[in-house]
Every structure is written in C-alpha cells, then in structure tokens.
C-alpha cells in the first residue's frame, strides 16, 4: 500500500509541476466595445449619414474595428422581400478602421451614409473589434431603415452593454 500512495503523490507532483512550469503568458483578454450610437431599435434615416459613437478599450493594444450592416428582412431568414419598393437595393455596409497603437479609443463619426435607394426595413448592425493579439469582441444591434423619422438625439438610451 505504501508504494501505491507514493506513486500517487509522485503523479500529483508531476501534474502540479507541469501546470506551474508553463504558465500562460499570451494575452487572451478581449477588447471592450461600448457602443453608444446607434442604440438597439434605433431608426436610421435613408439618404442621411449615421451618427456613430462608441468607446473602445483593451488591456494591451487595440488593433482595428469593423462595422457591418446588412438587411434582416422577412423574419431574419434573409429571404428576398422587396415588394414595397421594387426599385430599391438592400443596403449593405462593410468597412474597417485601424486603431493600432491605442489602448483606448473614442470613436465618433458620420462616415456611414445610407443611399437614397436603400430598401427600408429591419437591418442588423454589427461592430467587431480586435486587439493586437487577435482577441475579438462583437456587439450586434437591431436597427430600422426608414424614410420617416431617423437620426435624432437619443438622450438616455438603454444600452445593453
């Protein structure tokens, strides 16, 4: 029995040693996205630019962010539905911005422009952000594209992030 418990202890010691010897030193912490505008459920005005505002931060170094907007027609099965405005084109936006060297970033711009011929309806807005090590964060929002209403100040939006 003595040999057995000895063996046991040795085994545990080996495991403990292994675990200690190779501590993880790579950065596995994701960047943090605080998307302020547009908020979830916001209406974006067709033919206008989008008021885009967010705070980004990372424990080490930010790299880049990407904004992806695409249609979410017909109960999100992406099926074609352009009955209302046959001449219009489903809006699709895909653009990346560099942030290399920064640990935090305040983003505020009006670079997203919705053309006049964009099909009104439900859309998804997704913001991706990567850090220098390859960690990636994502925020998704539901937005509506419409000819009416649209961009106006949202004083106290309830963001879920």
């Amino acid at each position: 029995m003595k040999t057995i418990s000895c063996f046991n202890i040795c085994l545990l010691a080996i495991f403990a040693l292994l675990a200690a010897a190779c501590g993880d030193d790579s950065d596995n912490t994701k960047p943090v996205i605080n998307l302020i505008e547009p908020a979830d459920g916001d209406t974006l005005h067709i033919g206008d630019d989008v008021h885009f505002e967010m705070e980004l931060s990372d424990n080490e170094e930010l790299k880049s962010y990407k904004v992806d907007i695409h249609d979410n027609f017909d109960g999100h099965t992406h099926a074609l539905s352009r009955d209302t405005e046959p001449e219009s084109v489903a809006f699709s936006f895909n653009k990346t911005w560099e942030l290399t060297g920064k640990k935090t970033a305040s983003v505020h711009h009006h670079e997203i422009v919705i053309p006049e011929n964009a099909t009104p309806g439900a859309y998804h807005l997704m913001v991706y952000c990567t850090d220098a090590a390859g960690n990636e964060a994502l925020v998704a929002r539901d937005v509506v594209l419409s000819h009416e209403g649209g961009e106006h100040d949202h004083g106290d939006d309830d963001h879920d992030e």
Partner: protein
Amino acid sequence: MHAYLIPLAWCALLVVSPATASERDSLARETTGDTIASIRLEEVVITGRNYPGATRHASPLPVEITGKGFTREDFTGNFARALGRVPGVHSMDIGSGFSKPVIRGMGFNRVVVLENGVKQEGQQWGADHGLEIDAFNAESVAVHKGPASLLHGSDATGGVIEITRRPPPVDNRVVGELVLLARAMNGTVGGSAMIGMKRGAWYAKLRYTEQHFGDYRVPVDTVIYLTRRLPVAGRALKNTAGMERDVAGHVEYRLGAYHAWLTASNAYQKVGFFPGAHGVPDPARLEDDGNSRDTGLPYSSVNHLKVTTRQERGWERVSLRWDAGYQRNYREERSRFHTHYGTMSPPERSPDLELAFSLDTYSSSLRVTRDNGREWEQVTGWDMQVQRNRVAGYSFLLPGYDRLSTGLFGLVTYRPDTRLSISGGARYDRGRVEVFPYRDEHLEIYLREQGYSETEIARYRWRAYAVRRDFDDFSFSLGAVLDLDDTHLLKANIGKGFRLPGANELAANGVHHGTFRHEQGDPSLLPERGWQVDLSYSYRGGAWSLSASPFLAFFGNYIYLKPTGEWSALPHAGQIYRYAGARSLFAGGELSLGIDLPLGFSYRLSGEYVYSRNLDDRSPLSFSPPTQARNTIAWEKSGFRLHAEWQHIATQRRTAKNEDPTNGADLLHAGVTGAFSAGNSNVEITLALENALDKRYYNHLSFYRKIELPEPGRDLRVVIRIPFK
C-alpha cells in the same frame, strides 16, 4: 464492477489464445523397444482471460472497457454521450442528437472509432457532425487512450474506440433481447429488439432500434446569440426534436480454423436545429409553436449505410485476417432558402436543400500473424482506404474531395515469460487528397457591388481551393506490459501519431454556419505529427483496486484554427481564422480508486486532468476538457444495485483566444438497478436520476456552449432490459 468480469470463457479462448493464453504442456514419453507403451501427459495448464481482461493486457496503452454496464446506469441512447463516463473521455455535444467523442482533449478526427474492425467514417466532416452509431448495438466497447497510428494509420492520434459484438452462444439456440428506454429531459421513447440464432457453424442476428425524442429542455429562460439575449419559450429549445432508426443484420460462419462474417447496418437520424442557433436569430422565430415533438425546418438528417465483412483462417503457425468494408454516409441540412446576396434566387429543385454531403468509403485491411509457438509473435498488415465526397445544396460548407490512403506496418511482440510482453513496430503511410474547387459567383457580384478590387475578389470567390496533395509519413510504437501475479499491471508506451489534414483544413474559405467564423484552409499544411509517452499502473488485490495513467504528448505540428487579425470581407464575419500548425503540448492523466466495503457497499473515486498548450501562441488550446472527479458509492446485493454519485467539474479558465471560460459545477446523480426473473427471462430495470439538484451547468466542449445553452437539468431515465433464450 464484477458484473462485466463474468468469464466469457468460450470467447476468451478464441479471441485470446494466440495472444495471451499460455500453454505449458510437457509430454513425457516412456518407450519400451520401438512401441510406445504409454504416453503420460503430465500437466496441461491453459490459462485464458475473459474478454475485458485480455484486451486490457494485450495493449501497452491504457485501455478502459465498458461491458454490460454500458447498457445500464450510463445508457442514454446516445453512444458518444454514454462514453463520456469513461475517465479521460468526453463527449462533444451538438444538441441532443449528435455527439462525438473526445479522448484527453483530442477530438474531431483525432479519434478513430472502429466497429467490427472497420473505421467508422462520417463524423469527421466538421465541428457540427456527430457519430452515427446505434448505441443499443454497441455490445462491448474498449477505449484505447494514446496514439494508435501504428495499427490504424492516420487519425488515431488521440486514441481508438473499439466496438465489438458479443460472441455467439456456444450451443444451438435462439437468443434475443428487448431493451426499452425512456428519458424525461426530452421525452425520449425508444427501444431496440435483437434476435439471434445459432445453428451448427452458422450464427445469424438481426437488430432493430427506434428512438423518438421531443424538444431539448433546459433550465434557463434565455440564451445568448451574437451578443443578444433570446427567449427560450417554455424552457424547451424549439425544434430540437428528432428521431433515430437503425437496422443491423449479421451472419457468421465458423468451422474449424475458418471464420467469416458479413454485417450490414443502416443508421438514420433526423434532428431539428434550434432556429436560435442557425442563421440569423430573431425572437419571432423562437416563439413556441405549441408542439414539442415536431421537427420542422431547419433540420438535418443523416443516413449511414455500412457493409463489412471478415474472412479469417488459422493454420499452425500463421493466421490470416481480411476485413473489407463499404460505407455510404449521406447527410443533408434543410432550411428555408436564405442568402446574403441579392443576385441569388432559390434553386428550382429542392429549394430547401441548404447542404448535402455524400461520402463513399471503401476500406480493406489485411493482417498476417505469425508466431514461433513460444515467445515471438509478428503481425504484418496492409490497410487501404478510398474515399469520395460529393456536395450539393444552395449553400456551401465543405468541398467535394477524393482521398486515397494506404499503409504497411509490422509489429513484433516478444514474451519471454507469461508476465512480461514487449512490443514494437513501424508503419509507413501514403496518402493523396484531391479537393475540388468551388467558385461562388453570387459572392463575386456582391463584393464587386461593395466596391472591392478584383485582386481582393479573387481572394474570396473560391469557397474551396483546388488542392492536390500527396502525403507520406512514418509511425512508430514501442511498449511493454508487465503483469505481476494478476495484481499489479504496469504498462509503458512511446508512440508517434499522425493525421493527414482534412479537406476543410486544406481548402475551406468562407463562413462556417455553425461556428460563425470565416474559416480558411491552408493548401500547404503539413500532416499533424506528435509523440506521446504513456504510463499506466493498476493494482487489483483484495478489496482494493487502483489505477493511474499519466501521459505526455508533444506535437511538432498540431493543426488548429488561428485568428489572423485580418478582417474578412464576407458579411457576418469578423476576422479570418486560418488553419495553421503549431508546436503543442498535452499532459495529464486519469486516476481511479475502488474499495469494496463490508455489507455489499463499495466506493469508487475517479478523476481526470488534461493540460494543453500551444507553444507557438503561448496559450492553451481550445476545447480543453475541464478537470473532473467522480465519487460513487454503491450498494449491491443479489442482483439489486443502488448508487449515488457526486460529480465535480472544475472551472475551465485555460481557454484559447476567443474562447470563453466555463464555470464548474457540482452535480449529484443516483440510480437503482434491479433484476428479477419473469418467466424464463431475467428482466433488468434501471432507474437513473441525473443532475438530481437541477443545477444549471455548462459543458465546455458543447457546440452550443457559445450561445450559453446549459446542459440538461434534472433528468430521469428508465431502461428496461429483457433478455431471452
């Protein structure tokens, strides 16, 4: 524990005699003149082992056997999930229907599943493809932990799960069994009937299995998908119901030293996908449809047809065995037509067919075993496999490919006495993979509309690259088994494993609809290669049993999905993940202790630990199983068994990049099994209560982990087994 140690003497002698049965016979002749007056046989000792014992002793790698117990407390109707009870083995779950096994953190196509000597094909297609095996038909299962490329070629880097069937009865008779299963968690109702008939040299067997299950019930009201909280109506995942239907037939002939069999089986599964994890989520699609047992769109169905045959003949010093098999795996995923590209319209024929894969596999394996009747035994083998994969559907996931692989090996075993056995061998494999390219014209138009340059478009329009690669590799293995008086068993092995890169690892280029990532293959990938050292010690004496099996593996090239930091231009994709090779380390082991206490009580402790590290990225590898321990106390008396188990799962914080940590849990399980005779049958009823405290916990290896979908809550299972003779 002793339940599956019931000596299957007849089988043992047949299976084991060339391997471990030792024959010590001495013949004393007393002759007078030139006539033999008498022959006095002094002593003939034939030692045989029961099947589990023999399998455990035959391999220098740690082996776990699940016998009859497999169809008792652990039986859930899902093969890979039931295997998750074996220390060092986990199941990677894809909803309630599909699961695949992971051995010591190595999953996907790093585990070979052998059924009746033929490698099961199909489950390796991708992250969300399960294993199509009839759990009721897995009569005996041996798990070989460690690299077994020497005997099985590519893919066996993590280990081998070997499914064998029970031997036929010795005398002419009809045997059969009826197994019924019911499960509360998803309303499973299933059963399997088997009938076998032995007549002289012939034995025939037929099995039919059918299972139906309703929506998967979970102890939460919401799940998270793409950072959004989605409701789970009535705590049941809508549209995850499904069914399974399996048929298997087997004919066997044995006369003298000749043995042959033919087995044909067909496994069919149809399981719905949770609409919250397929496509783009929307609360509207997750509303309760009022029916928890229907399977609507989106769903997937798989049909696996398998025909295998064995021819075996033994002579005095040589035996010959040939296994041949044909498998046809057809899987399809149906979902209402959807696209990201306005230029694409639904196909005229089968507009709902999103993806279809059809894989044909032909395999052959030849073994020649020679021995000198004493200490030496030599096995020479030649394996060959031809695969042809074709794809269809309006969407694209994996490319079509042709693959040919062949390998030649030699293994020598030296047994200087009955206690020690040393074996070593080498193998050479060659493989050729040809992946067919796939050009996505709709994507091309979309990217042009988005204003991408032609050079950029050229990078994306091939959803699969044209790849033609030739591979070759050597495998080695050297091991020893020392068996001291049947109480101490010591094993040591060093082996090299390898794996040819899969078609997706070489050629894929696009968003995987299951992982929501832009996954890109690398046509220049080298085969995965690793060395592993395994030790194992087990002690069995009196009321005590103990076993420990540590291992250490180093991969010079371990293929993983590496985040590149490059943005993908594809809709719904973040950065590109590219398959890459990295130097990696795996270490860990299993430990178990059993004590037979007085008054029919027994206690068992088993634990497992895996450490994984990507040495190039200086970070853990993804899907590292958490440390786990099980404490089981049981009471057994005259066919009646009661058990309670405390399962501790540690928090897994060692995660790869972009993989979330998973909290641990303490779970309580209990079960009762009773056997009683009814008529001329010995009916066995098992009641198993899993997660008795209704804890909400997560499986780090689950496919649905990323949408924060927990494991089932409290679940009650009933298994009734009625054998007849």
